[in-house]
């Protein structure tokens, strides 16, 4: 096993949603619930799951934008979850983020070259000229031209903006890039461009990715290992091939079967899950998935399933990992 | 909901307390001696002292404050220096007048403001919109006493249609409430317009059009109803402007209301009256805003009181 760059242990995060008369929170959104995983240097680790399952919260926790209620976050050999914002700042040059929304993540009042070189300004002592040169190089790297540096974000299309975001993330040559749904807002043709770019950059700069997406097909293409999240918990973690070939959690199976296949010749059998995702303020007892699971039993309602290692590197959080839908 | 109300009302208490302290401090900072005002210009020093004692003005400030606040709890607002009447009996006949004036103003201004705003929003970018908005902006640009004077000049003196002052008949309320409401009308027109424009661009409007609803139903049943949420909130905030307006307009139209009483009381340094009035105005502001919030919750089901 190569070096572990990120190690997350029993991470839990609750957001208060209502307060009692005396200002004490009474209700919580259980955004992330006892989540643990490791990311090895150089690999692409993906988290997939439906909207609201806690993917972004996990990434924000890792990025030290919010602090966990419980659990540890190890990055590059340091426990960072208890660091203050100030202590965290120098570490950020090793960890950069690419966000989902290419429109909101760029300050509309800054020129593109300033956006790209901002991490340099913060983390290095390069002169203005050097920063500018670097920004122009980076523009080149992500497939834009240096002339674009003088412009403002609103003059770019979504895909181009996402490239700008990627260039910014690359500027300080981080070890880890957290990409939170970097392609979900893009059209397919553009999405392919960006995915290819990410892949090329990984090879070139030996990057580690935490790649977040709700699109199983996209994840399959880019990631080495995948975690499937549901209602704040990781239900299944497996290497890429394992997961797609042999999904063991009923949720993963349902998810996979729900993905439409762009081929009319294949008439796929869909497993239709009943009902909706429960609200994360009132988590079901036991297994969070049991309310929609076709073979939920009383045990599922009673006990939180243990993490079962079904194959090396393939962990499932289910009482019945051997049943298939 | 009940809990929410209780909470809001409880929240008002510290606010009122602070305001009462501030008001008390404020008026005692205003230069001028109420005892001298009561005694009159020809009074001698000894008489002034005697009056000061009668009025309890020679007690330490803290005692005076405590006396006042304890009185408040017993529903006793003190006695007016200048009139020897209890402040309560002083306010009692004026309160309905100012209230009625305020209600008239807010009613017409809300009605017209909303209509102008809605018409402007529906005709966005066209001449009706521009006309509506210029009217609206003109409304907040006119000093209300000037408007009052001009209205009086035109309608009372010029045409002899309406009384120039007093509120003995309902006609007496017309011009003052026009002068008082102009600014609010404008603000509401603008809020209505921008809220309507925003709501008209929302997806559910497209949905209701796709249902086959007529344009008027789309506008009033959907866009307008949604906009009323914003309108209510902003309207409530205007209560402060109305109070200030009443001070000025009641002076112009010689209306025996609370606003004019306040001006007169400040002139006489009638502490008891000033204190009570300002506290009352503050309370009024808070209560109206509370009502607006409740109303907001009724119109807007997305608000949850917990």
């Amino acid at each position, binding site marked *: 096993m190569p070096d572990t760059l990120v190690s997350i242990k029993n991470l839990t995060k609750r957001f208060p949603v209502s307060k009692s008369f005396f200002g004490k929170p009474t209700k919580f959104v259980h955004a992330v619930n006892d989540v643990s995983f490791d990311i090895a240097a150089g690999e692409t680790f993906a988290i997939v799951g439906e909207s609201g399952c806690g993917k972004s919260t996990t990434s924000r926790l890792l990025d030290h934008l919010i602090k966990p209620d419980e659990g540890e976050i190890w990055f590059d050999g340091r426990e960072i979850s208890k660091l203050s914002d100030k202590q965290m700042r120098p570490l950020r040059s090793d960890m950069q983020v690419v966000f989902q929304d290419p429109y909101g993540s760029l300050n509309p009042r800054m020129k593109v070259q300033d956006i790209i070189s901002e991490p340099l300004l913060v983390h290095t002592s390069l002169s203005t000229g050097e920063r500018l040169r670097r920004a122009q190089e980076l523009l080149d790297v992500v497939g834009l031209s240096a002339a674009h540096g003088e412009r403002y974000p609103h003059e770019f299309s979504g895909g*181009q903006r996402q490239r700008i975001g990627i260039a910014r993330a690359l500027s300080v040559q981080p070890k880890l890039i957290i990409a939170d749904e970097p392609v979900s807002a893009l059209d397919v043709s553009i999405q392919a461009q960006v995915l290819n770019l990410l*892949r090329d950059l990984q090879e070139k700069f030996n990057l580690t990715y935490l790649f977040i997406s709700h699109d199983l097909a996209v994840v399959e293409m880019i990631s080495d290992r995948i975690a499937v999240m549901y209602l704040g918990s990781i239900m299944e973690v497996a290497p890429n091939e394992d997961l*797609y070939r042999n999904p063991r959690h009923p949720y993963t199976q349902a998810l996979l079967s729900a993905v439409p*296949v762009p081929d009319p010749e294949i008439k796929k059998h869909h497993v239709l899950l009943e009902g909706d995702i429960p609200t994360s303020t009132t988590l079901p007892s036991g297994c969070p998935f049991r309310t929609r699971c076709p073979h939920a039993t009383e045990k599922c309602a009673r006990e939180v399933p243990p993490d079962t290692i079904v194959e090396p590197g393939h962990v499932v959080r289910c009482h019945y990992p051997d049943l298939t839908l | 909901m009940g809990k929410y109300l209780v909470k809001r009302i409880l929240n008002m208490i510290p606010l009122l307390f602070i305001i009462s302290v501030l008001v008390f401090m404020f008026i005692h900072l205003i230069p001028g001696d109420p005892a001298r005002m009561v005694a009159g210009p020809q009074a001698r020093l000894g008489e002034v002292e005697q009056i000061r004692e009668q009025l309890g003005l020679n007690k330490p400030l803290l005692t005076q404050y405590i006396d006042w606040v304890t009185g408040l709890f017993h529903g006793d607002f003190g006695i007016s220096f200048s009139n020897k009447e209890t402040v309560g009996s002083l306010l009692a006949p004026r309160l309905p007048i100012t209230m009625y004036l305020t209600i008239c103003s807010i009613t017409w201004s809300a009605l017209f403001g909303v209509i102008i705003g809605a018409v402007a929003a529906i005709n966005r970018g066209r001449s009706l919109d521009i006309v509506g908005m210029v009217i609206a902006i003109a409304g907040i640009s006119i000093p209300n006493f000037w408007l009052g004077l001009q209205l009086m000049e035109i309608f009372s003196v010029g045409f002899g249609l309406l009384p120039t002052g007093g509120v003995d008949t309902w006609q007496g309320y017309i011009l003052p409430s026009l002068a008082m409401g102009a600014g609010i009308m404008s603000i509401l027109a603008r809020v209505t317009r921008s809220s309507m424009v925003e709501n008209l661009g929302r997806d559910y409007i497209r*949905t209701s059009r796709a249902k086959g609803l007529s344009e008027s139903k789309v506008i009033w049943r959907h866009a307008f*109803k949604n906009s009323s949420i914003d309108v209510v909130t902003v309207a409530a905030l205007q209560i402060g402007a109305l109070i200030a307006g009443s001070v000025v307009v009641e002076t112009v139209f010689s209306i025996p209301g609370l606003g004019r009483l306040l001006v007169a009381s400040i002139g006489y340094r009638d502490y008891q009256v000033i204190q009570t009035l300002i506290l009352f105005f503050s309370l009024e502001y808070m209560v109206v805003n509370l009502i607006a919030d409740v109303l907001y919750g009724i119109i*807007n089901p997305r608000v949850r009181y917990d």
Partner: protein
Amino acid sequence: MSAPLLEVRGLTTEFKRDRKTWITAVSDVSFDLHPGEIVGLVGESGCGKSVSSLSVLRLLPRQTSRISGEVMFGGDDLLKLSEKRMRSIRGNDIAMIFQEPMNSLDPIMRVEDQLAEAITLHNDLSKREVHERCLRVLASVGIPEPKMTLRSYPHELSGGMCQRVMIAMAMSCEPKILIADEPTTALDVTIQAQILALMEQIRRERNTAILLITHDLGVVAETCSRVIVMYAGGIVEQTSTRELFAHPDHPYTKGLIASVPRLGSRVKRLPSIPGSVPDLAAMPSGCRFAPRCSFAQERCRTHEATLHPVAPDHLSSCLLSENERKEVLAHA
């Protein structure tokens, strides 16, 4: 094949940019819709899918848009009908649902009132009957507790539920045509699967013609019998779903299909279409796809590309033939 329910001919929609200039968002779009079929309308964001469908129902702002062409429905040209007649068609004969189910319902009106609004508008029913009808349609779209849902406000429902309510609302007057503008884009895959199944069920049970707008080729492949591919305001290809996926003719369609990542075919790199969609105000002359097309020739930039048959029941707008493109490829 039965007679078409809806015939769209040469639909062109323009938007007012400023005092004098109008920009064309949809140009010369023609297609048919038959009873009981689901037709997919695909294309990248901004290509004019929504505008085309809104134009059919004349739901675009009147002051800032103008529509030309012909939309024949039941012998009438919808574009020429009075507003009043048009209203009796909207929601009644042709219903529409939208992408953001949460935003497409009036946030401050109970579901029942919103449903009832459409029903009472087009039917002469008593209050009771309306209520029953509401219950029935809600149940028919698979809402587990219709009674409770009727009393709810939209924000109390999940996205999937809202979309079901939207569909129920659209179906409440049993329209002949349902236009669904990206009905599942905002939903999760598991919910998307539910909704798509529901659409299929509606088509089957009521023989409703559905125009399904989407940018997801997977959705098209799974649900549609025919596909219309749009690019930059115009149709570039139109054929049956099988044909399209089996023999895409237009380079754009080809690129699009290729760039979709597929489950189970783990590739390192995806083929992609270079560049991005042109700006409406600066449409390239000739074939609009030419600037991004790796086969583009001189005439592609000068000649207007129009839809023409390339195979039976297969229209494409590519100016080059299959052979010519092969040649280009060989030369490169």
